[in-house]
């Protein structure tokens, strides 16, 4: 017993373990910080550690080469013992990491923890956020399938919009003029060496700052942070109600970490790994690229914006947003910390979360995307065909043939880009349908050059039957000025109208 004790003392004298413990795990924190609200930071760190370990294991098998990556992923999924499960843990670990990081950031913001004297903690956290998003994007590329290929293509196209140096940036991103062998190597290096290295370095700084400036005390409504008095106030809190982080304030972190591990394991077991989806052969154009969920909101924003706003939202808004977040601890450096007295802060968090979630939902459903197989795969509902004339039946066939269904649904099947045609006859008269088909308009292409008059006649004849029994068809508000047979001159552009009159 005594020998053991002597050995321990000797080791401690050499390694200064007691001192290290006292200044790190055992450092005193306000007792109020042992709260469920404070668990997200450690959960994010835990996810990162899981990611490093599972990532290293996957790298035992994965081959970062454009000709082999897909095969090695298939090998992991189907042959390697528990390869699929490790891929699943890595995938769900990354999802959880982004999710808990977001919770952590919201909590820090709502608790005013970014204020004096913890400005740099907040800023280093922002850089961790950027790095994590970088890991998410590069990780999506590691899953070298069609989504990865076309995701890169989207990334490169966004780069290509930067004025002046856009062209070179595209080449820098792709490691060449086009997505090829070196592109994957480049993203592998970023995903496995550079960004994780940066993350580790910044985490060290982040934690060092937490130790140096202390963990934020649970804010009391009404307490004002002043640069002159805060340090003394914090020292006072530590003196009065300080407890060593381990073991007195770490309990909830521990419970939550166990929960996080089990959560990831169960998610991985139930939902499995993502992809790889299609062979990364760009010549297979029959594909529907979608990003992972963290980028769905951006994906949706890029579809919904008018084009004059795109530059703004792609580059200027993110730059301003990031600058604002970086400047935040200096803009509101002192004053009230409690969320109960900061309604604007709470409202902006709710607003931003709602916007992102809504956009992500839109990104998931992508109502703006044509349904590429609806025209050949989605049958016309039988109720719309019963009792129709031969011409109308033909019109229904043509509606399929001209790919109208790719953007317009019938009976709930088909694209959602344009309005559903289920009750189109209650909205448009036959003349308006003819005009819409020939000239397009709204967001619809003009079909004038691709349909013959009998085809238009057949389609319109079918569409005039598309209305509920009880609802009358649409009609003109005033009777037509003349009773002449309607001819196409009225829907031709003015120049051609003049021609027609000759």
């Amino acid at each position, binding site marked *: 017993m005594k020998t053991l004790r002597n050995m321990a003392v000797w080791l401690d004298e050499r390694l200064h373990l007691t001192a290290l413990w006292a200044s790190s795990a055992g450092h005193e924190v306000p007792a109020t910080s042992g709260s469920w609200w404070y668990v997200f930071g450690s959960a994010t760190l835990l996810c990162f550690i899981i990611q490093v370990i599972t990532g290293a294991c996957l790298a035992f098998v994965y081959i970062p080469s454009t000709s082999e990556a897909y095969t090695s992923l298939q090998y992991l999924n*189907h042959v390697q013992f528990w390869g699929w499960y490790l891929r699943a843990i890595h995938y769900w670990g990354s999802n959880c990491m982004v999710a808990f990081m977001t919770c952590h950031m919201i909590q820090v913001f709502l608790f005013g923890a970014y204020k004096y004297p913890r400005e740099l903690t907040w800023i280093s956290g922002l850089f961790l956020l950027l790095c994590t998003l970088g890991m998410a994007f590069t990780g999506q590329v590691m899953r070298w399938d069609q989504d990865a290929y076309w995701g890169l293509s989207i990334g490169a196209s966004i780069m290509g919009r930067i004025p002046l140096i856009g062209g070179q940036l595209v080449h820098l991103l792709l490691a060449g003029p086009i997505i090829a062998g070196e592109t994957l190597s480049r993203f592998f290096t970023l995903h496995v060496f550079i960004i994780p290295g940066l993350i580790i370095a910044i985490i060290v700084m982040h934690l060092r700052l937490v130790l140096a400036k202390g963990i934020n005390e649970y804010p009391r409504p009404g307490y004002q942070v002043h640069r002159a008095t805060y340090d003394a106030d914090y020292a006072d809190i530590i003196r009065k109600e300080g407890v060593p982080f381990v073991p007195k304030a770490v309990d909830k972190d521990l419970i939550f970490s166990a929960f996080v591990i089990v959560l990831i394991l169960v998610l991985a*077991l139930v939902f499995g790994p993502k992809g790889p989806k299609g062979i990364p052969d760009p010549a297979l154009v029959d594909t529907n690229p979608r990003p992972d969920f963290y980028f769905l909101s951006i994906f949706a924003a890029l579809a919904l914006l008018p084009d004059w706003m795109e530059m703004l939202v792609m580059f200027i808004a993110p730059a301003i947003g990031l600058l604002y977040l970086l400047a935040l601890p200096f803009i509101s450096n002192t004053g009230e910390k409690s969320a109960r007295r900061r309604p604007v802060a709470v409202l902006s968090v709710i607003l931003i979360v709602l916007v992102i979630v809504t956009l992500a939902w839109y990104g998931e459903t992508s109502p703006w995307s044509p349904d590429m197989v609806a025209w050949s795969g989605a049958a016309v509902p039988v109720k719309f065909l019963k009792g129709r004339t031969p011409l109308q039946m*033909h019109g229904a066939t043509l509606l399929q043939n001209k790919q109208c269904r790719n953007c317009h649904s019938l009976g709930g099947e088909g694209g959602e880009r344009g309005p559903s045609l289920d009750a189109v006859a209650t909205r448009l008269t036959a003349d308006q349908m003819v005009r819409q088909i020939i000239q397009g308009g709204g967001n619809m292409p003009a079909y004038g050059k691709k349909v013959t*008059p009998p085809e238009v006649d057949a389609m319109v*004849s079918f569409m005039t039957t598309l209305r509920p029994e009880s609802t009358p068809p649409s009609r003109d508000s005033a009777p037509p000025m003349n009773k002449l047979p309607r001819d196409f001159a009225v829907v031709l552009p003015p120049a051609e109208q003049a021609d027609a009159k000759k």
Partner: protein
Amino acid sequence: MSKSRNSMQTRRRISLFSSVLLLLCVAGCEPPGKPGAGEVSAEDVMDFPTLYATNCQGCHGVDGKNGAARILNDPLYLTVIPKDQLQETIEMGRPGTAMPAWAQSQGGPLTPKQVTALVNGIEQNWAKPVNFHGAAVPSYSGEGVNGNADNGRKLFGRDCFMCHGPGARIGSVTDASFLSLVTDQALRTSIIVGRPDFGMPDYRVLGLGHALSDQDISDLVAYLAEKRPPAVTAALVGPAPGAGNEGNKSTGSSSERGTQ
């Protein structure tokens, strides 16, 4: 301290739950997340139901019937149409009509093997022996039988007018727009096989309860073909669709009818 005991219990429960899951996994129960066979790329799909559902049912209907275009799930149709015609129609489409070409050589999406799989699938799933009740089996193309339009008009008045006359229950087939969109072959096939899914009888009973002969069918087609605008007839035979401006007028007047 009861608080920490509670948390101990929670942890124990969580670890119990996870070990049960792990045991399930080890016991050989397939975890739901385990990836199944990898995705098949579109060109490797050979299974008939999938091929049909993605490429054909938009127009020809679920399970080959009740669609806007020709019924395929019909033993009579599959008896009358030669297999090579079926294959050729899928490969090359019907120029000038709504049937596009599906073979890759024609710019479509299907490989030769997939076209064969479709033809075989249609034959195997939907072809059945047909009872002709003693009626002669008409030829698919009617080649060598010259139609007589005059006789066709009489036959039309006798056999078709009830449903397809102007203002009749089903609707006109002598309408210029309709005739501009269908080939003679399509008219012929429609007379032969009818639309059993929508109640139109086939040639076996169309002749006032009796079968139409090969000659009758050709006569009817000749009569209908005569009613087609001449400019369109040329276009349907030639490769280029689109009848230019003189066709516009006929559509203008007939679209009036569509609004009624």
